[in-house]
């Protein structure tokens, strides 16, 4: 006998799209950011996703925290005009106040609005 009455509930931190849909259903503005390519050492693999709403609530990640701030900033513009954007982040000069990846990688992040 196999007991299948209990269903597996996936963990919240992997439920980026499910949460995005829920936010949208509540009438919030939502954008989804996806890592579409990486070069060198980068913290999150291609396909990693981050959803963000108009109040900067976020779930998921596209880096180890290095570029999320910048992605959220651009995501607000995407929410406003509906135009998807392809963002590129490179190696940061450690001495400069610049957003980038301290690990020395380069990544491309695609940001789109959830219509």
């Amino acid at each position: 006998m196999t007991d299948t009455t209990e269903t597996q509930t996936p963990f919240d931190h992997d439920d980026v799209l499910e949460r995005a849909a829920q936010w949208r259903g509540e009438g919030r503005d939502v954008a989804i950011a996806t890592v579409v390519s990486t070069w060198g050492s980068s913290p999150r693999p291609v396909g990693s996703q981050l959803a963000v709403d108009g109040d900067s609530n976020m779930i998921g990640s596209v880096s180890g925290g290095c570029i999320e701030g910048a992605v959220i900033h651009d995501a607000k513009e995407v929410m406003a005009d509906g135009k998807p954007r392809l963002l590129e982040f490179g190696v940061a000069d450690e001495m400069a106040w610049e957003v980038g990846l301290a690990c020395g990688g380069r990544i491309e992040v695609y940001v789109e609005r959830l219509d």
Partner: protein
Amino acid sequence: MKQAILDALLAARAAKRPVATVTHLESGAQALVYRPNDSDGDTSGGEVGDLALDEAAIASARRAIADDKSVRIDSDAGTLFIQVSNPPKRMIIVGAVHIAQPLVEISKTAGYALTIVDPRGAFATRDRFPEVELSEDWPDDALKALNIDTRTAVVTLTHDPKLDDPALHVALRSEAFYIGSLGSKKTHGGRVERLTQAGYSETEIARIHAPIGLYIGGKSPAEIAISIMAQVTEVLHQQG
């Protein structure tokens, strides 16, 4: 992303059906691609969305699903990003023993869907394993019914030949990406002998990771569970 695409994507995920979202990065147009014969009778692959895909693009999307790897490709029509959404990897644990309890927690956190197989009624109980799929079938029947694929790990924890061996008989002839068995070198020596007598080849038997787990000196059930999860992870990524 259009609501219709997201709805279809979430429906596929809820149904544990593999799907790829293909995005034309210049325009933002999107389409979903399923595996053939995997979309409610639609043999074309059942694309949904506002992006027209040629055969080459559909083939690339299906290859990405099979490789379990999202990828960006350049096509004549522009740059396409293929985002793979596969159902969770699975771990089948034979033996609802103490080590299985922390292993369930750790592997769930790592994103695995769990099934515990133990025909001994006292072990696989709801009390000990809330919210996990439990099977009380004999391990060979249970594993056959579970259709082990390349995204499945099989872990035997009973170190009782009458339970572990039937599970291994099925696992060794399956596509499981990982097979591991708890037990000392001596226990494993006896296991190798029995499997050889049962007609399993040296190459087949060598698929078993035993003694199970990476060597980190673990003693408690939780520490051993961590070493098992570490080894499963290592093998998963060695596959390339």
